[in-house]
Each structure stands twice: as structure tokens, then as C-alpha cells.
């Protein structure tokens, strides 16, 4: 059946003018390149990604069960990497510090970022784009340079922070130790990262606020809702997807906190390890002590912890949505 159907169309081809044969040749090339194109476009990425993305992930699972001495020697040790980790005092301190930092950054940074975004979203406001640029500018600096700068700002006697505080608060001494006293290390780190990331998160909240349907506000206003009621009835549900995104990404980012404490406190993690984070611990163990296997075990512990917490966050915010 099909052969008889296609047959009538074939004779017409040679019957048409002489340019036909060359076109037939080029069109077979044409269809071939069309069919091959996606493979050609995607395969460079797939090859590179397999070598430098997927293979290391698989390798790291294996490495987590080995003790290594740099890249040269490996010994299978089973679960003892994990066993040692959970009983290592430094690791416990690192986990505690990281959790404290994450809680502070989520509960301090995100409300501040949302507040600034709401204020910036007011129609009557002038100097809109300048303020947005000002708030965002810290994020352009890069964590290393922020670390260097704030180490100077927090330094005793001539540091700007102490001198300003001393002039505002009577009795505040300029030799207040921010980075030299274990009790003040975490507040200094939290304040620095507040300065650094507030504008970054604000940009996301602002994008969410600008997408809120204006008619909903007008309707709420007609119904006599005050600003507070309008926020909870209109703004909060509308920006929830983007707020969840910001919450999850900033939690993940906080768990990977490394650059700032490393720059500001040095390799050791500050006095009494007060600024030691999980990634700093991983760096110390893997690349200073040289046990890449142990570092992989720490890395996977971090990954599983982060994954569990972000799934929990998504579930919590998702279930709240279901109750609405």
C-alpha cells in the first residue's frame, strides 16, 4: 500500500528542471545536519560534564570510605571516616557555628531584605534606582574583598565600627575586640554578611512585589483593609513562591559559609574556633592535613544535611499553602 502511494510522487522529481539533482543531494545533507544538530550542540557539554561533574560525584562517594594521604595513597576504612567525624570535637563546633550562623542570617537578613523591598516598592518614592544600586553594591565586591575590608572596619582603635560606636554610645571603648574575642566573632560575621547579602535578597523580593496584581490592592483598599491586613491578605500569598526560593537558597548558601570567616579569621577559625564553619573544617582536613577521603565524607555529610533541610523547608512552605 505504502509503496503504491509513494510511487506517483517519485516520477515527478526527475521530470522537473535540471537543478533538481543537486538540490536532492544538498537536501539529504540538509536533513542529516538537522537530525544531528542537537547531538552536536549538546555533546560538548555532556562530555565535559561527565568528566568534571558526574565522575567526581561518583568518585567522592567512593572516596568517602577511604583514608588518603594527599592524592597519592588510599586505604579503605569503611565507615570510620563518618564515625571519627561525628565524635570529633572540632566538627561538632563547626556544625554548631554553621547552624547558628544560618539561623541568624535567615531570621535577620530576610526580614530586613523584605522590609527594604517593601519600602523601595512605594510609588511615591524618589531616587528608586539609585537606592536599589546602593543596596545591591556590596554584593558586587566579592566575599574576599568584603572580608578584607571588614577586617579593617572591625579592627580595634582605628576601625570605623568601633570609632563610630564610641562616638554614639557613651562608655564604649575603641579597644572592643570584635574578631579577637570568641563571644564577638559570630556577631561580627553575621553583621558583615547582613551588609553583604541584604541587597541581594532584596532584589528578589522586589521582583516578587512588582509582580503582585495591583487590582488586588485596590480591591483590598476598597474593602477597608489597613496596610497590615493588606500585607497578609494580598502581598504575603503573592510573594510566597519567591520568598520560598529566597529562603531555600539563602539557607543553602549559609551552610556553605567559608570565604568571610576564612579571610577575616584566618585558617584556624578564630579564637576558640569561634568562627569555624563546616566548609572551613572540610578545607582544613582535606587540603591542609591532606585527607581527601575524609574531606569527601565531610562533603557528603554537608550535602545530605543541606538537602534534608531544604526539602523540609519546601515541604513546610508547601503544606502551609495547602492549608490556605
Amino acid at each position, binding site marked *: 500500500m505504502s509503496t503504491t502511494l509513494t510511487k506517483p510522487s517519485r516520477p515527478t522529481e526527475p521530470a522537473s528542471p535540471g537543478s533538481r539533482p543537486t538540490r536532492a543531494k544538498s537536501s539529504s545533507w540538509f536533513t542529516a545536519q538537522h537530525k544531528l544538530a542537537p547531538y552536536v550542540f549538546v555533546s560538548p557539554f555532556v562530555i565535559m560534564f561527565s568528566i568534571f561533574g558526574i565522575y567526581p*560525584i561518583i568518585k567522592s562517594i567512593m*572516596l568517602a570510605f577511604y583514608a588518603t594521604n594527599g592524592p597519592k595513597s588510599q586505604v579503605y576504612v569503611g565507615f570510620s571516616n563518618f564515625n571519627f567525624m561525628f565524635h570529633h570535637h572540632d566538627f561538632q563546633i563547626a556544625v554548631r557555628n554553621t547552624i547558628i550562623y544560618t539561623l541568624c542570617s535567615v531570621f535577620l537578613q530576610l526580614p530586613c531584605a523584605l522590609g527594604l523591598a517593601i519600602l523601595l516598592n512605594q510609588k511615591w518614592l524618589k531616587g528608586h534606582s539609585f537606592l536599589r544600586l546602593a543596596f545591591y553594591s556590596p554584593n558586587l565586591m566579592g566575599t574576599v574583598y568584603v572580608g578584607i575590608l571588614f577586617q579593617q572596619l572591625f579592627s580595634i582603635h582605628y576601625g*570605623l565600627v568601633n570609632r563610630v560606636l564610641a562616638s554614639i554610645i557613651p562608655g564604649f571603648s575603641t579597644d572592643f575586640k570584635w574578631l579577637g574575642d570568641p563571644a564577638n566573632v559570630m556577631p561580627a560575621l553575621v553583621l558583615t554578611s547582613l551588609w553583604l547579602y541584604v541587597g541581594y535578597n532584596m532584589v528578589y523580593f522586589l521582583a516578587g512585589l512588582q509582580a503582585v496584581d495591583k487590582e488586588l490592592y485596590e480591591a483590598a483598599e476598597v474593602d477597608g483593609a489597613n496596610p497590615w491586613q493588606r500585607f497578609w491578605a494580598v502581598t504575603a500569598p503573592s510573594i510566597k513562591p519567591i520568598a520560598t526560593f529566597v529562603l531555600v537558597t539563602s539557607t543553602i548558601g549559609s551552610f556553605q559559609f567559608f570565604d568571610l570567616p576564612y579571610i577575616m579569621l584566618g585558617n584556624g577559625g578564630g579564637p576558640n574556633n569561634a568562627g569555624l564553619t563546616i566548609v572551613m573544617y572540610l578545607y582544613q582536613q582535606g587540603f591542609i592535613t591532606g585527607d581527601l577521603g575524609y574531606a569527601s565524607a565531610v562533603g557528603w555529610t554537608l550535602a545530605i544535611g543541606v538537602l534534608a533541610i531544604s526539602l523540609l523547608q519546601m515541604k513546610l512552605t508547601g503544606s502551609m499553602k495547602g492549608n490556605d
Partner: protein
Amino acid sequence: MSVQTVNTPPTASPIGRRASESMGKLIASLILIVAGVIALTPIVWLLAKTVQNKDDILSCLYFAPISHWTTENYQHLFVKTDFGHVLLNSIFVTDVTVITQLFFASLAGFGLAKYEFKGKKLVMGVMLATMMLPGQVTMAPLYDMLYHMHMVDRFQGLIIPSAVTVFGIFLFRQSILQVPDELLQAARIDGCSEFRIYWDIVMPISRPMIGAFCLMAFMGSWNNFLWPQILMHHDYYFTLPIALNQFNGMYSTAEGSMGILLAGTMLSVLPVMVLFVFLQKEFVAGLTAGAVKG
């Protein structure tokens, strides 16, 4: 009389509301101004300190008198340290990284956006799954691998593993999805090869995304600290962040020689700031593109 008493309450409340409204505006403006000052103060302080001599750095709170301003910190930076060499390293590594990332991300993003092919779902699924993993998981095995490939203490070790960015591919896929299929089909009928469609149609249309992506890739590479710190042992291969970290230890604060350190910091952050001022709109669009869609 009775008319007046009826009329007064409604007029009084809008006036009261207007007063509290303008009070609210005043407070909001004050908060924004204070926050803006706090946001900008450290950066301006940095700039102010780089043009001060050793004595002023320790004694001045903020700006020194303009007659005291000096460029000696910047001169010392280039004469006494190998900042110039490190700067060239960073420019080289960042440029090559941005170009290779742009090429891989846009090409694969186009392939994943506009074609159906075998294994597409698998590739996308694996990409998504790996995005969930923090990068620190693969640091140890990647170092191990690069050691055996003789890429430790080489620029290749920085450039090649970072050539493919899953995030960048998703960004380009998102923006290329919006290119109408009819346009590509019309080009095909005119005899355009698939690569020419990518090069002459898709890339020019994606210009705003390219701007945003390049700025993000530039920032990521220029400011990258942890991986170069792990990979580079020899200071010939240092990039700006690790060199500045080293300066941070060398130029102790007490002697006031931190002017050199701060001048280096200033010059390191300047390129990103300048780029951002020109690309601000594209950048914010690119930043939020992933969030709003996802």
C-alpha cells in the same frame, strides 16, 4: 448647625489619615536613607583610605583633608608587590572562563530548548539533580583528578572544570524557549544550517541574556576564592582573591601599611562595579529570570 456637625467627621478623618500617611512616608524615607548610607559607607571608606598616607590611615576617621591625598599606595602596590602580574593572571583566567562558559551554555541551552532528541530527558534530569549538590562534595575528587591530569598549579585546572555551568545552560534554555519556532523554520526553508541558525539568529536575539550571563560569569570567576586557593600553590599562578588574601597576612595593620592592601582591594573590585553600572538592567533581569520561572 446640624449640617456642619454632620460634615465635620468625614473631613477630619482624611486630614488625620493624610497626616499619618506623610508621617509614614517620612519614617520610610529616613529608614531608606540610613540603610543607603550604611550600605555605601564601607565602600566609600575603602576609597578614602586608599588615598591616605600611613599616618592619616590610622588617625583619620574617614576622609583626610584633600591636600593630604596621595597615590603612594597605588604606586607601592605595583612597585613593591607583584599585583600587576596577578592582575594579568586574573584577567586572563576570567576572560577565557567567561568565553568558554558562554559558548558551552548557549550552545547546549539552544540544543535543549529547540530540539527533541534521544536522551534529552535524561540529560536534563541529571543536570537538575546535580544542581542540588553543594560544590564542596566534589572538591576532593576533582583535586585528585586534576593532580593526576597534571593540572594542579596550572590555569587549565581553573578554566576547564568550570567551563560548563549547569545554571547557565538553564538560563539560556529559558530565554531561547521564547524564540518563536516559526522564525527558525523560516530560516531552515531559506537553507540556513542549524549552526547558522544558532549563530546568526538565536545568539543575536539572546543579546540581553548574554549580557546578564557574562556579567554573572565574570563576577563568579573574578571573585572565586576557594577553588584557586586549593589548586594554586605557586604564586606565579595566583589570581587576585588568593593574592589579596596573602597580602592580608603580609601587610600588618599596625604599621599602617594596610594602605597597599586596601588599594589592591579597591582595584580588584573596580572592574565588576564598572561593568555593573553599564549592565544593571540586564543583570537584574537575568538574576530574577531563574527565580520567577522556577
